[in-house]
């Protein structure tokens, strides 16, 4: 392969990985930014999205339906959890959230195993997306292009949601000054439930997107969690734009790093995370914690 097609292919690979990471990252950063909750269970919600997506495709035969249904279900479950359990813990210190979300990860991981079994499940890609397109004579799966497109669309949608809608405004305001929002008459608790639900729903939709590519499997959760944390830390906890930058950075480093220096790719990524943290403790675009 010549250099230019290779470079373009690798960049597209990186962008498609970044898209998946972005779904995970923006959900986590939203939750942290508004609620100061470090959601250990985020990877589990991602995994749940993949499995629910698999079931949805099985029952309805329609991938697009699954794409809509799964995040709603997963987000709904997240919101319910916030309502039932997390809500009682707001007065307490951060330890409580850590424990509870860790506990939730264990529960969800095992529940998924009981409901869906140990084997990796193949999700059928919709026929319209399963072909390839030739970019500079090199085949590239259309599905990955779809992923990149979806990432951009969802990113724009969330940005507009935060900027233009009332709920978005409330969310941004709550992250800055929850008491004032409360004093102005809004039930902050509802905002929090909505945010947690949306954050988990985003993780869930990431899972549905990922499933046809990587198959739904029980190992998804722990790997997703650490990747997500790295992105959000690099980009800045609580910064939506930061999660995008973090996702891009991590994806490119992983793709090009594992190509040229496969032995050091992992270490390199953590080294970058460390360097950024030392230079800017809040992350690239985060507020100083």
């Amino acid at each position: 392969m010549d250099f230019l097609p290779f470079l373009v292919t690798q960049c597209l690979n990186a962008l498609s990985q970044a898209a998946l990471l972005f779904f995970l990252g923006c959900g986590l950063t939203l939750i942290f930014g508004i609620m100061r909750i470090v959601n250990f269970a985020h990877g589990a919600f991602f995994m749940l999205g993949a499995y629910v997506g698999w079931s949805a495709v099985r029952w309805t035969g329609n991938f697009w339906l699954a794409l809509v249904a799964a995040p709603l279900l997963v987000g709904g479950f997240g919101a319910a959890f916030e309502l039932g359990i997390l809500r009682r813990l707001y007065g307490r210190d951060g330890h409580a959230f850590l424990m509870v979300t860790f506990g939730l990860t264990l529960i969800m991981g095992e529940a998924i195993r009981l409901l869906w079994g140990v084997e990796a499940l193949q999700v059928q890609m919709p026929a319209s997306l399963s072909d390839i397109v030739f970019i500079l004579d090199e085949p590239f799966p259309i599905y990955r292009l779809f992923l990149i497109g979806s990432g951009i669309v969802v990113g724009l949608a969330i940005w507009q949601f935060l900027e233009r809608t009332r709920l978005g405004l409330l969310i941004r305001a709550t992250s800055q000054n929850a008491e004032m929002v409360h004093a102005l008459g809004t039930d902050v608790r509802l905002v929090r439930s909505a945010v947690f639900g949306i954050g988990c729903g985003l993780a869930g939709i990431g899972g549905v997107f990922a499933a046809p590519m990587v198959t739904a499997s029980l190992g998804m959760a722990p790997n997703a969690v650490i990747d997500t944390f790295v992105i959000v830390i690099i980009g800045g906890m609580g910064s939506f734009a930061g999660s995008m930058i973090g996702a891009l950075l991590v994806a490119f480093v992983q793709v090009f790093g594992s190509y040229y220096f496969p032995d050091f790719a992992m270490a390199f990524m953590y080294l970058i995370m460390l360097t950024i943290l030392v230079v800017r403790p809040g992350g690239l675009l985060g507020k100083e914690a």
Partner: protein
Amino acid sequence: MPGLHRRALLVSALASPVVLRHALGETPIKIGMPVALTGPAGEIGAQMRRGAEFWAKHTNAKGGLLGRPIELVIQDTGGDPAACVRKAQDVVERDGCRLLFGMTLSSEALAVVPKLAEWNAVFMSSDNGDGRLTGSSLVPNFFRANTSGPMGTRAVSLYLRQAQYKGFYAIGMDYAWGRNSIGVFKDEVQKAGKNFIGDVYSPIGTKDFSTYITKIRQSGADACFLVLQGDDNAAFLSQARQYRLPDKVQLLTEIVDLNSIAATGEASVGLIGSSRYSYTFPGAANAEFVEMWKKEYNTFPDTFEGEQWQAGLILAAGITKAGSIDADKLRPALENIEIDSIKGHVKIRACDHQGEQQGFMVKVVKKDGVAKPFPELIATFPADQVTPACGKMTYDS
């Protein structure tokens, strides 16, 4: 959720030693089995468990061993070597097991074997691939009934000598088995006078193989050797198909099992690889086993289920010959023991406790009238060509 409840009960009933003990009145022979039932290797561990339970049930129905029923003590290790050491110690100390099965990953086995002498327990491996277990890390109480990684790799390389491929690439999971097998492969390719272009290792749990696939494409190889298993294998095969990699590069693999075929569907068609066990193997013994299995589970037996069955047969032969389960008597009885198994003739060598057996190459094909793709036997190699010299992991010719 009634279905869940029923399934959970069924599972615990199957695992319950009580069911087996009351069938015969004698003190049972306990076999400890720390195995990965959860985690990325969970599917393989589940196969090993089923294989062991089926063997135990079948043996007990015929009167057990030495007139005593077999009792399996199965524990989940999650695929973590530290947990495996803990569980193995537990079944030895708490349940008094003197015999061990299981230990799904080679890294788990490598962690446990140094302790076998201290526990005076014999371990019969049914799936560990790493060559060192019968080489530099060999301990007297370890026996390997299954095809090892080097043996599987050797079958692939022998097959390649007749094939037209010139340049080879390799991708493996970044741990003991992956590195070991690719090392052997590289040696074989170079001995055959062909070109070994390069290799790459992916961390266990890799989800996105796009960059590795691009690398393989770019290398100019016309064949690529895969040393992947479980979820990683499924993900790689799916994505390779998405990038149309098999059109350009023939994929060869060290292990072909039904589970990855089921997980990847069409994406696995055309795959050529070594098979440690397949229900499509010839011979009356295998046909009989497959029939019995189908009657019990309504499905074909998979790779590790068959390997576990063979391990059980060998252990049983050794115990019968020794007249005891005591390690000091069992060890010499197992050395040089020979049986006719579902894979043909198998002999446990005295020098390094490796089971000498044939090597098999299969190709995943889709045929009309058969719902799913299946592994078709394309080549068989005799035991003396496939098994390495004593204690070695590489081959002289």
